[in-house]
């Protein structure tokens, strides 16, 4: 490390890693990962979302999992919880859909009607 700038760069690179442990985040994406969800490709959906978060500038978005939501034909399902907003659930979210939802809804706050399953709790 030759100078302070170099330290800052390393810090920037690794900081996001630690953000998860602060317990503070604005957006929480819940991927349903029951047998039905996984069979329908939830794993792929989740990996796509993880990648997208990694590549974005955002460090306040986290992913967690949940069990079966009871609408197996809608799998893979995801729910998006944004601070101070009512939760939104999407159905049949494949990788492509995930990309679109991430871009529009998570980054820009616009609900993607095409995949919308329900709003509110």
């Amino acid at each position, binding site marked *: 490390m*030759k*100078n302070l700038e170099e330290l800052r760069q390393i810090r920037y690179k690794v900081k996001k*890693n*630690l953000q998860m*442990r602060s317990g503070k985040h604005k957006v*929480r994406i819940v991927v349903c990962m029951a047998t039905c969800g996984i069979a329908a490709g939830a794993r792929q959906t989740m990996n796509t979302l993880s990648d997208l978060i990694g*590549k974005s500038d955002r460090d306040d978005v986290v*992913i967690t999992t949940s*069990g079966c939501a009871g609408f197996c034909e809608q799998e893979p399902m995801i729910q998006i919880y944004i601070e101070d907003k009512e939760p939104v659930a999407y159905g049949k979210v494949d990788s492509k859909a995930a990309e679109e939802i991430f871009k529009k809804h998570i980054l820009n706050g616009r609900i993607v009607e095409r995949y919308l399953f329900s709003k509110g709790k």
Partner: protein
Amino acid sequence: MYNLRTHILLCYGGACISSGAESVKEAMDKAINEAGIQNEVDVITTGCMGTCELGPIMIVYPDGVFYQKVKPEDAEEIVQEHLLKGRVVKRLFYKKPKTEEMVGMFNDIDFFKLQKKTALRNCGIINPLDIEEYIASDGYMALGKALTEMTPCKVIEEIKGSGLRGRGGAGFPTGLKWELTAASGGKQKYVVCNADEGDPGAFMDRSILEGDPHSVMEAMMICGYAIGADQGYVYVRAEYPLAVERLSLAIEQAKKNELLGENIFGTGFNFDIEIRMGAGAFVCGEETALMRSIEGMRGEPRPKPPFPAQKGLFDCPTVLNNVETFANISYIILHGADDFASVGTEKSRGTKVFALAGDINNTGLIEIPIGMPLGTIIYDIGGGIPNNKKLKAVQIGGPSGGCIPVQHLNVPVDYESLQELGAIMGSGGLIVMDDDTCMVDLARYFMEFIQEESCGKCTPCRQGTRIMLDILTDICNGKGRMDDLDILEELSFQIKQTSLCGLGQTAPNPIIATLKYFREEYIEHIRDKKCRAGVCSKLVYAPCSNVCPASVNVPAYLAYTKEGNLKQALKVHLKTNPFPAVCGRVCPHQCEAKCRRNDIDSAVSIRSVKRFIAEEDYPECFPEKQNPNGIKIAVIGSGPSGLSNAYFLTMLGYDVTVFESEPKAGGMLTYAIPSYRLPNNIVEKEIQALCEYGVKIRTNTNVGRDISIDELREKEFKAFYIASGAWDSIMPSIEGIDNEKVMAGLDFLYKVNNEEKVSVGKEVVVIGGGNTAIDAARTAKRLGADVTIVYRRTREEMPAEIEEIKEAENEGIKIQLLQNIKSVKSINNKLEVEFVKMRLSEFDKSGRRKPVEIEASSFAKKIDLLILAIGQKPSLGTLFDKGLKKDMFAGGDVKTGPSTVVEAIGEAQRAAEAIDKYLTGGREEYPWNIMDPIEVDFDPEEEPVSHNRAKNILIPLKERKSFTEVEKTWNRETACKEADRCLRCEYKKEEEDI
């Protein structure tokens, strides 16, 4: 790496590792790999999270779910359920002590919630073995800021402005220390980190070095920059191998990243750090001794001045700070002095780390704003005292510190306040002690410690502590003398004044503090040859007998019962206590709380065995009376204390008459304790036996009213034992209390026991939380009322016996906590009672939180009868109107305040001895003090019998409408089998005496 969705932080602090964290890590990694989510989830090992008792522990992020006592076999479930399906594994949640309530979220646990982490900011959050994690949490940014934006002067200003004081014990202002060293001339200067954490009970330095080593290194460099040093030493205990290992690794990583070495950040600043291991000498925690040790010498201290700031390591100016002090530095540089100083008290800024240990539910490491009340630390963060035991004292500051007794729980924990009470902040070891700790033995322990660790250079410390240790050892062995206490005080003063270094100067502190707060215990050891905690083995026959106020030889009667020799069992009992049937029913059995069998499974059911042997025929089991001497003694009051005293004096050959103002003898036994607990015929039987033994009882005679003490003197009564009890109820001064529907608890019980008609109506409220309140409530219930007990504190503070409270609830009595009455008035033949809600505020002298009214929280309720059972006071009548003369003695409740039957019997023994001494000059030994050898075979090598504690037999709830006795006596088989569970703790004692 960025697509990780979950971080599992697994505590790799020393304590968790020894609880098996490494195998948990292995199992987690395996389960994660098997589930194929190794690219999504990472298990990160961190430094100590603080809750050592709960280890191994983990926190799952981003959820923040906290799992405790995780075992390798739990890994599969955590992965399958939590990580894959998002369903938390509830059985691994933290359970609140006492309430057993489950808490899943890390942030909701009181232990963490009340803390503020500055020095420990990264401990348990980052992986200490990964420098990148340290950098991610702003690591080395403070160094960068200092080197590029601040002059050395400015750095020192900032530290001074923060008000940071040395966390190693003495509390010297850190900024000032740096300034003095910076101002010293000379080319070579040093920075030394004192990690020779020697105080027993403190382990925060180890945790910081293990959990966040870079923060200490960064701070040492900042200090080096500020004072002009280029070399640092960390002096760490050899007993901390893990800390040495992690620190070495951190140094290596920092060097590799050019954060340590030459030309750091291209600023031309050089710094190197070397680790030096201690070698097991406590005195090396003292700064001058520590530096001698780094120099490779014997670690003997030298006089100051010169101070290390002028002449330190290798005779060069040196800053010496401890680990925790350094751990605060980067935070101050990054966030500013004001931010740091905004926490804490006027004179003690910031936070302090404490190691909570001893008899406390949540042991571990905590960091709190300085000035937090001691009671908050113990009860809110520490979760209180385990096993329903009572807090006795808190030892703060290790061998140089003192003990704070329970009456000072409100003390703000800061440097000055602790000093006022004779303790010191020290390095932050905070050891909680319950009443099983002997304070004399504790003082002896610390003196032994000091004696071993004294380096021997100066005489007061070397010889003085030796003498003090010898005296304390004698006292613990029952060979102390009263003037020993003066000698201890004198020596303490001398050693403090004349010792060379801090070790000696503070060595007497534990003695001074225990003498100040627990002098009574010293006196008991010397005068009564008694160790109330049951620790000093030479003074303790067996833990059960030791705690029994009447010193009943429990192992003996259990042993004879086991053999079926019930007569002999009863004989043993009657020697010390003439009320086995009564005590077999109402004794609070402290003996069982101390029973060593608790360590194996659960205590021997001593009380129930006692109850069984009381079925035997008394007269032939009473001890032989000594030759009658014809001297007449009058006992006033025929309660348990009066009758027992008469019994013991009769045993000694006196002619004793008991005067009782009521028509029946027995006092509280007859008139207060309800018959479902203690049937009248049982009391009558035992009193009848006493009469047959020779005790004379005159009922319906009130001494003071019907006959005066002077008149009795004229009738040749030579001594008077006043045991008139505590019958006067304390009534609160509230509006409307003079109402026929308001009764005192004792009056109510008296009336019912005396078979007077009492109408309770439908709704009864009993105020109070003691045994009288519970007795009144269960009695009212039996008379057909709906009963509610209202108590102003919480259940934990209720003085009544736990079993009684439980049975009351089983019988359908409601208990409303944190409420009190405010006023009372009559409305249409009903009583309207105004209640108010309470909350607990600061601690009172008894160590309990004081209940205070919550404003505007009052509510009214219509009831039929209000019973007030909030306290009783001695009933003296006109007895003492003519003053107390030499021939008058007092005992029982009238002296102690409301207490137990067995306590009253113990009082009676001591009074009998005092009366005998007064009348005849006393005798060598009193029968009740002799523990006869037990003539029952016992093989100490044999495994104890394995069967569990036998259950008490209670009659079904539906049969509890009348005053039939609730508990039934065991049969012979059950009792003998239970008695066989005794471990015979007295066994070795006899052997030694022979």
